[in-house]
């Protein structure tokens, strides 16, 4: 598994743990009524799980196991993958921090707007990067021609 896929998948695993911590805290609060503020963590919990864990895991696995683009550049331009990683995670963190802050104190709406732009850019770039790799079994031309072999 190449470095980029490992980074995506390990980050996804971190989000899985964090999401369940937040989700567990939300359930604890439902049972024990610890604080009214914890209710604002519901949407961050959903998105930690669905964006941070599920979507990021799928992106990492797709980049790893989809058919190679060409023999020379099997994964295409890897800079696109790094952009996806940075924008998706920065966008998600802005949302996870900004949404409770906005609910509790107000005035943090800009974080949600920035998060929206970063996440949608990340996904558009992911689609552009992975689209050419959704294809049949690659048939690479041999590097040497039969006459050269002789």
């Amino acid at each position, binding site marked *: 598994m190449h470095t980029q896929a490992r980074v995506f998948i390990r980050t996804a695993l971190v989000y899985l743990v964090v999401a369940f911590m937040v989700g567990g805290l939300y359930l604890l609060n439902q049972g024990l009524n610890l604080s009214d503020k914890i209710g604002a963590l519901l949407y961050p919990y959903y998105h930690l799980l669905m964006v941070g864990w*599920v979507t990021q895991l799928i992106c990492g696995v797709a980049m790893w196991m989809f058919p190679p683009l060409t023999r020379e550049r099997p994964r295409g331009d890897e800079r696109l993958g790094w952009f996806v990683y940075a924008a998706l995670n920065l966008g998600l963190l802005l949302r996870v921090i900004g949404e409770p802050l*906005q609910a509790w104190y107000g005035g*943090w709406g*800009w974080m*949600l*707007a920035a998060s*929206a732009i970063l996440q949608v850019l990340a996904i558009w770039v992911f*689609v552009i990067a*992975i*689209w050419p790799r959704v294809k049949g079994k690659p048939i690479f031309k041999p590097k040497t021609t039969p006459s050269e072999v002789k």
Partner: protein
Amino acid sequence: MPRLSQIMLRTALVWIAVGYTFGALVLYNKGVPFWPWLWLLRSAHVHLLLVGWLVQFAAGMAFWILPRLDPHGSRGNERLVWASYILLNSGVILAALHDPLAAAAPALTSLMIAAAGVCYMLAALTFALHAWRRVVSFRTFPR
């Protein structure tokens, strides 16, 4: 990757792009309100991403990588998967259109969401019928 998986995965990629666009509009509007109507896209965002993206992507991958049925590489009855593909995407479109159109045509949209539910049920059933026989332990075919 078989043709049908390519079609399912590419459709899933279209839905993730559209679903995230709707989600971004809803989230942006939550932080910096500019058009209250955008909140009506929230339900479409959920259907597009949970069913159109996640379920369809998983089904497309499963059709590709589950064990084949014979030494010739047969994947079994592909018509069931085609039916599942059409039903699932019809359901996604009907469900996604429900909330934005609900205010304009409530009677029509009630039928639409009910039809979406039926499409989802049949899509799951047809895909499971196809995949069931391919969930087998490791085996080697005689060459």
